[in-house]
């Protein structure tokens, strides 16, 4: 188990890489990438069984990014974990890059499914969980959905299936940042009480602070102990977390920090002071 202090520092660096990556790309999704950092860091560093050298390792746990638009956070995590060279991050969304605008399993090591059309990842993950279970494999499957994404009917179809077949090896996380593109989720299409809905669907439900690495780790561990039901972790988060001018603003959903002053400001908010382009030249641990 990695110390929380250390994971906090890792999260800070992941946020830095997301910002630099998106500034370089000039398009992409800032808000929903920043909100999911602790969800992924606690999972990849403390829970997930995986081997960057062998992405297809039979005994690995699976992670599915159902909200595919947030792939910058996944790419930053995979690069830090050693799935591919860090310099690939600066080619995001460019012609011939291994990092597509939305995750593609055939181009990026560590990506299990091609996603980006919302509302499909929970079914893909449940299907993988079912396949593993039927073959007597002990692997767990984790899947991250958006909260707006849970408007999709297919989410609730998968919700029924996973509970019906008692997929206790399936752990879904909902990035509950209360924002989608058109605005606040409760104004666009009300979801609450989301925890009650999932309980009514016979899932084990945790509602926690999605930026608290300790709480996230605890919820994942409780999932590993569950022997009957699938688990839904409702992770309360802040869209744009860590960058003051992005926090809680729907307009930063699909916008990126501009090269120069703006991305420098974002890095300053995260406590990084070196010129932003310097971070492209050094390794993950270099803080300037």
């Amino acid at each position, binding site marked *: 188990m990695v110390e929380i202090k250390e994971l906090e520092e890792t999260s800070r660096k992941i946020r830095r890489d997301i910002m630099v990556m998106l500034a370089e790309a000039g398009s992409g999704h800032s808000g929903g990438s920043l909100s999911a950092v602790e969800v992924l860091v606690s999972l990849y560093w403390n829970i997930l069984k995986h081997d960057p050298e062998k992405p297809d390792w039979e005994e690995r746990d699976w992670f599915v990014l159902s909200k595919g638009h947030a792939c910058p956070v996944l790419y930053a995590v995979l690069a830090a974990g050693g799935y591919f060279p860090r310099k690939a991050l600066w080619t995001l*969304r460019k012609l011939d890059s291994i*990092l597509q*605008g939305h995750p593609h399993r055939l181009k990026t090591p560590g990506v299990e499914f091609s996603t980006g059309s919302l509302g499909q990842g929970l079914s893909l993950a449940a299907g993988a969980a079912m396949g593993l279970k039927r073959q007597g494999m002990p692997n767990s499957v984790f899947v991250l959905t958006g909260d707006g994404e849970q408007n999709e009917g297919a989410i609730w179809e998968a919700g029924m299936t996973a509970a019906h077949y008692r997929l206790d090896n399936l752990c879904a996380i909902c990035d509950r940042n209360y924002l*989608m593109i058109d605005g606040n989720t409760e104004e666009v299409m009300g979801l609450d009480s989301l925890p009650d809905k999932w309980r009514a669907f016979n899932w084990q439900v945790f509602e926690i602070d999605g930026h608290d690495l300790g709480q996230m780790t605890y919820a994942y561990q409780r999932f590993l102990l569950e022997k009957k039901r699938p688990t839904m972790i409702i992770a309360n988060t802040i869209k744009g977390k860590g960058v003051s001018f992005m926090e809680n603003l729907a307009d930063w959903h699909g916008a990126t920090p501009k090269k120069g002053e703006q991305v420098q400001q974002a890095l300053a908010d995260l406590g990084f002071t070196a010129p932003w382009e310097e971070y492209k030249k050094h390794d993950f641990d270099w803080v300037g």
Partner: protein
Amino acid sequence: MGGIREDVHLVDYRKGVDMVPSRDGYGHGLLWLCEHDDRVVVCDADLAKSTRTIWVRDKFPEKFVDFGIAEQDMLAEAGGMSRTGLVPFVTTYGVFVAGRAWDQIRTSICYGELNVKIGGAHGGISVGPDGPTHQSLEEIPLMRVLPGMTLVVPTDAIEAKKATIWAASHEGPVYLRFGREGVPVITTEETPFTVGRAEVYRDGGDVAIIGCGPLVYEALVAADKLEKEGVDARVINCHTVKPLDVDTLLTAAKECGAIVTAEEAQVYGGLGGAVAEVISQHHPVPMRIVGIEDVFGESGSPRELLDRYGMNSDNIVSKVKEVIEMKK
């Protein structure tokens, strides 16, 4: 030698063009309709800004309905509303409507003959860096095979506005395809536009280039290049892919004896397929189809992708040379 027809009142595109996304024309058309047609309701699925329905949300909030990220629900709900006399314009990206909600469109809307209008944004590979998940390359075939559907692929923002306003006046399902990128504005208010009628923009007798969407502009540029090589190309804007203007197409086949189609979509089942169905059954002539050759795209800039996947004026020129060679 032929040349640009005077009676189509095109912009003098050789002197430069304004670049405007066709989705803007949709937004302007919706605003006009909201002022003039009480029956119109604009439906959105959490993409108000990029599909321009936000203009309606801001100016006519009482005419705007957000369904959240639930396209299948939105399409069938629009079907329900249409039975009460309203005229819903449902709007999202092409992939999420023509793909995700295809069964709702097929059975509830087309089979049930419901009066629903569909605005499909982000058509084509020029969607760019978002990548293949968002580049809609298959809606033309998906919509074209549905009985009762009218399918229009406007060439620019002006034509998109005209098509949007026309859609409200038509009884029955309509699909309008728009792009994300700014594309050349080549038509004017005076340019003739009738749904179901392909418009000859340039006269010519050696080959007919039949395009839709922004590739009509590429076809005009290709025709200029071909003229320098002594090839006289007719250019036709076939904005209505369904119902197809069979007369204009057959006349072109008979008079030119060779056809090249051009669209920003898969080469299977789209405009090219539609034209081939007519030509091969009624007046076979050499033919080639310009489009994406049975692959998914990738992330990149719009221009890079159009060049890499073969949808620029030079690609049209080389296909024209192939069919001219076959005529000999």
